[in-house]
């Protein structure tokens, strides 16, 4: 990746915390390094306590790294200017309950340096975008969780940033709210924005992300596109068939490496995806009845779990 194509760069970042009276040191990030390209949707995946939010806080300047450096659009995160073109939605965002949604957005627009002449129109556009126009002048304390999340997204986008950081953006949302966020991320990608997303939800990663990094205990175990990650694994499929003769069972086990389990008069066969065609041909040739073929869709989850358990 060329330097000018890099939106986010993290190089050897170490973060130590001193809990309690500061006599002990707890290392949360162990020399983290990765890059996010401009225009990418980047998924940062990991179990609770892996260091995802700490990494995001380092990038936002909320936490100072113990060692290493990080930059956004080429500007070190220690400098205020690094956040000029950045939007941030924290996990479970909370805003002053004494302000209305419109007042909050105007306040954040002023902080972000949106010119006064453009502010009113920009705020109105965003209120429409996130579906809060009708509730714009109500106090935030009357907002539901979904509405707070939406006003949080609006404040992150109020200055039309180039890079958007989202910390667990689907957290606590109902299926409709999650779909809206997914649509929003796709829209941001189509506009050429860079999106950095901390998430647990692997189906979203598979659907939305161009690249993904799996963080476990403060270290990156994987980095690449979801496609690349899945390519490195042998995907499997489940076939359910009826009228499978004992000879066919033996042949399937020997030639296709299939694993079979009986369910009454039916047999469930798990087979590597590369052997699926051969297996189906053998079943048809033996006049067995094929009831269903189900490709396994949780491969990313398997990779994730393997990474967490240290098997890969």
């Amino acid at each position, binding site marked *: 990746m060329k330097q000018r194509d890099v939106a986010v760069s993290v190089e050897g970042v170490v973060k130590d*915390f001193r809990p309690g009276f500061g006599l002990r040191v707890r290392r949360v990030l162990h020399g983290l390094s990765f890059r996010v390209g401009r225009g990418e949707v980047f998924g940062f995946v990991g179990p609770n306590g892996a260091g995802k939010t*700490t990494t995001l*806080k380092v990038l*936002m*300047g*909320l*936490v*100072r790294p113990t060692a290493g450096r990080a930059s956004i659009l080429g500007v070190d995160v220690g400098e*205020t*200017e690094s*956040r*000029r073109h*950045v*939007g*941030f*939605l*924290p996990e479970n*965002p*909370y*805003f*002053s309950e*004494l*302000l209305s949604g419109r*007042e909050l957005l105007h*306040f*954040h627009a*002023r*902080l*972000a*340096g949106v010119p006064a002449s453009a502010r009113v129109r920009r705020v109105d556009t965003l209120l429409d975008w996130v579906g809060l126009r009708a509730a714009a002048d109500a106090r935030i304390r009357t907002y539901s969780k979904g509405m707070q999340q939406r006003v*949080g997204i609006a*404040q*992150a986008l109020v*200055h039309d940033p180039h890079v958007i*950081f989202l910390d667990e953006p689907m957290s606590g949302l109902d299926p409709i709210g999650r779909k809206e966020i997914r649509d929003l991320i796709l829209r941001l990608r189509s506009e050429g924005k860079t999106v950095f997303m901390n998430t647990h939800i692997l189906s979203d990663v598979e659907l939305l992300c161009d690249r993904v990094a799996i963080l476990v205990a403060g270290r990156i175990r994987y980095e690449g596109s979801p496609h690349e990650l899945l390519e490195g694994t042998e995907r499997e499929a489940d076939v359910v068939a009826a009228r499978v003769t004992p000879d066919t069972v033996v042949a399937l086990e020997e030639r296709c490496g299939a694993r079979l389990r009986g369910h009454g008069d039916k047999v469930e066969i798990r087979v590597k995806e590369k052997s699926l065609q051969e297996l189906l041909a053998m079943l048809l040739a033996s006049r067995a009845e094929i009831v269903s073929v189900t490709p396994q869709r949780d491969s990313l989850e398997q990779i994730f779990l393997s990474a967490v358990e240290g098997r890969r």
Partner: protein
Amino acid sequence: MSATVVAAIAGNTLRESVRNKIAYALLFFAIVMIGSGAIVSSLSYVESGRILQDVGLAAIRLFGVAIAIFVGIQLVYREVERRTVYTILSKPISRAQFLLGKFAGLTLTIWLQAACMGAAFAIVSLASGAPLAWQHLAFGLLVGVELALVVALATLFSSFTTPMLAAFFTTGFWAVGQLTRELRDLGAASDQPGLQAVTALAFRVLPDLQSFDLATEAAHGLPLTASDVLLPLVYGFGYTALVLLLAVAIFERRDFR
């Protein structure tokens, strides 16, 4: 440093504080106390106007400080605890701008409340026939500076500790600030050089808040020189600036975990 950003944060803090109904409770009691001065003074045959003003001016000062401490100690802590600071500091602003904006917004709020108390005091004084003079304006000016200093202390402690401890430290500093001159004089009268040095150092480090108290001069119409007002004014702004510098230095080093 962009003044626009500081003004935006100050304006927002002022708006939130004005909408926070809890702060009005103390203001209500202050006005009740100022009004009660008229009742207390009516019980006296002599100098009833002065008694009224003594009570009223003391109420303005004490309740002003109480509101400054009560609201000030939560100033930064609440923003960090509720994580509202995350979205604010993710904008291109420095932590110093954030802290100064919060300080300015709260100081404006406290000054507005002090002005309300002052208006109540003026109405009660005029209604009771007690005289109002320029010494009262001087009193108001210096109380304003003292309140700004107390807000700065509350901001400092609120930037790194809990509201309970911040309240303890701020109240402690304010209380000690009423006694620093006595402390210095006590040390000077001692024949122990060590004690002299310690009390002299304490006088220089701790705030000298007695110089802001012109209540006696205002209530009794005693003469004031320009230096009685200007010197505390310069001292107050200087001390406030130093406290804010320290608060910024501490806040800059904080990790928001």
